[in-house]
């Protein structure tokens, strides 16, 4: 699925990314602590592939994607983005003035198609705006491009003059995708693009995203909490827990042979759509750790069924184990964990 691109070419490299939000208290608004939303995250995305970031709410997946877009300025770390021409820019430190030119190469698809489209703008205005901002002044040229884009995402160009309220959730999400594609970006950051949609419409949007990737050679960073959706779109998956990546692997490997106990628990918790597969699930005790006051050692240790003393003292680094899987667990080699393969 690499769309003929050189497989080894990295489009995005995130190095030791950190984003801490200060907690302020009192009259003087003194900083009394910090929420470690993204805590030392590193990964790379190759051109033409789909990497998914999964995790539960508050794990930092959205903050990570916002730091990559530089919608938030990271506290520390690098976000190296490589253009097709070979030039590399660090999104984390780039001066604000130069960001606009770069952002045309990285576009975003949002979660809620009802609030991410301006109800007072027609589809032409919505999809044409990025073109106008980036110097396509001619009305005719924009009309041509917008109708081309609408056809591409499976909408009728005649509907260009309509307003978003005339469209269903799935159609609106198509408009959001068309807007993201307007400037021929190479990287698309999709933050929960199907979670607000009905199940029968989710499949349509996922299929569209797969088709567009093949046609246009797009690279996706796909942020989601739903593991079944992730399985349908990803080449590789990174699992996050309380601001850290705990496991990165190829999709099939991660689902069949998870190496981190948290991944195992997540997979086990997903209800399987087959009543004959009702089985004993691993039900984690307690709640997700508080990123403002994380536990010692491995952040997952208070809930981990395989915890040993070492986990309470030492933070496990993300390291490579057999077969190129990256895992942050002291016991990755000795544990045999259960995936979701049918047999």
């Amino acid at each position, binding site marked *: *699925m690499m769309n003929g691109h050189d497989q080894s070419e990295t489009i995005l490299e995130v190095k030791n990314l950190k984003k801490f939000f200060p907690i302020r208290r009192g009259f003087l608004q003194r900083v009394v602590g910090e929420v470690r939303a993204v805590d030392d995250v590193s990964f790379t995305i190759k051109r033409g592939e*789909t990497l998914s970031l999964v995790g*539960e*709410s508050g794990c930092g997946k959205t903050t990570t994607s916002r730091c990559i877009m530089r919608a938030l300025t990271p506290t520390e770390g690098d976000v190296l983005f490589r253009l097709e021409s070979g030039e590399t820019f660090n999104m984390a430190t780039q001066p604000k003035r130069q960001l606009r030119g770069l952002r045309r190469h990285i576009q975003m698809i949002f979660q809620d198609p009802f609030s991410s489209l301006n109800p007072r703008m027609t589809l032409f205005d919505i999809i044409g705006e990025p073109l106008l901002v980036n110097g396509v002044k001619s009305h005719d040229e924009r009309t041509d491009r917008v109708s081309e884009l609408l056809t591409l995402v499976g909408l009728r160009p005649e509907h260009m003059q309509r307003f978003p309220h005339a469209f*269903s*959730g*799935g*159609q609106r999400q198509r408009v959001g995708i068309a807007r993201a594609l307007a400037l021929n970006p190479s990287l698309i950051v999709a933050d929960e693009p199907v979670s607000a949609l*009905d*199940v*029968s*419409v*989710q*499949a*349509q949007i*996922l*299929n569209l995203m*797969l088709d567009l990737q093949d046609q246009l050679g797009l690279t996706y960073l796909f942020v989601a*909490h*739903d*593991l*079944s*959706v992730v*399985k*349908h*779109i*990803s*080449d590789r998956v990174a699992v996050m827990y309380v601001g850290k990546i705990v496991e990165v692997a190829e*999709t*099939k490997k991660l*689902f069949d042979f998870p190496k981190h106990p948290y991944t195992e*628990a*997540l*997979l*086990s*918790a*997903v*209800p*399987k*759509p*087959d*009543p*004959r*597969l*009702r089985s004993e*699930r691993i*039900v*984690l005790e307690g*709640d*997700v750790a508080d990123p403002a006051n994380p536990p010692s050692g491995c952040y997952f240790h208070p809930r981990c069924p395989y915890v040993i003393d070492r986990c309470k003292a030492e933070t496990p680094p993300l390291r490579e184990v057999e077969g190129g899987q990256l895992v942050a667990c002291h016991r990755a080699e000795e544990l045999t964990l259960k995936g*979701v393969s*049918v047999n």
Partner: protein
Amino acid sequence: MSNEQHEVILSVNNLKTYFFQDEGTVKAVDGASFEVYKGRTLGIVGESGCGKSVTARSILRLEEKPGRIVDGEITLLREDNSTIELTALKQNSRDLRAIRGSDIALIFQEPMTSFSAHYTIGNQIIEMIRLHQNVTKREAKDLTIELLRRVGIPKPERRIDEYPFQLSGGLRQRVMIAMALANNPRILIADEPTTALDVTTQAQILDLLRQLQEDTGMSVILITHDMGVVAEMCDDVVVMYLGRVVETGPVDDIFHNPQHPYTRSLLTSIPSVLAEPRTKLPTLTGAIPHPYNRPQGCAFHPRCSEFMPGKCDHFTPHLQALDASGIQHVSCFLHHEPVAESAEHIS
């Protein structure tokens, strides 16, 4: 599926709840019929706008204006084996208030908005207990602590004095469940109880519901859009589309022998963790029609892959038994021949 006869505790027959608005009438529930059995879990599944939540609310007579039940019967079997007709009661009558919360309890989808923000959780549960049971404040408080412990809330004697905003989503849903169980209901209606929760929390709550059902023997009506949750939790399933029941049956038949094209496409078009990575899903074409322009005939026909012109767009199918055993019902002309409209006013 065992053939033993299960006792019907609640039966809904030809329920119609319409919303009368200036723009027109929305037939949110348009002739839904199903039965709830003692000690079993019934799943009502469908996409947004199929009327599953309105059905749940109609059972408790909580349908809100401009909505009104225009037709149908909801028959509840009471503890003393008498039956009561819920549609005949006034919405704010004493009889109905006695049933709400004690015979039938409801868990809402969004645990944040269904509590009062101004009272502690203890306060809210105690009020509910004292409305239905003749106990002192002290006793009610002890009962509340016991309930909170039963739904797995750590340190209940301290939590009882906390406000809803101090609890996490999972804990809030547990408190919601504790409140619903306060008066030992015989039927628990759970309207998307885990939709707002993360998967690991969802697993906890589903486990809790199952455990509580085993302990108390209550019946559960689980309303959800998630076929995975249905597969894990339910004994019987009702599939709804645009206000009507299209198929009912035991869970195993619904998943392994679905008869209605909508049920089939719902099952094949959902993303699954069991699928091969990066495979395309078969899709349902189009979107759910707006309730103002409900398609003629079978409401599903514009999206149906087995649409038969002249039949599906002219006649309205009705729910009928699939075979002589009568355990699976389907509403589709693939299985029944259309009959002239006049001949079918049986129920």
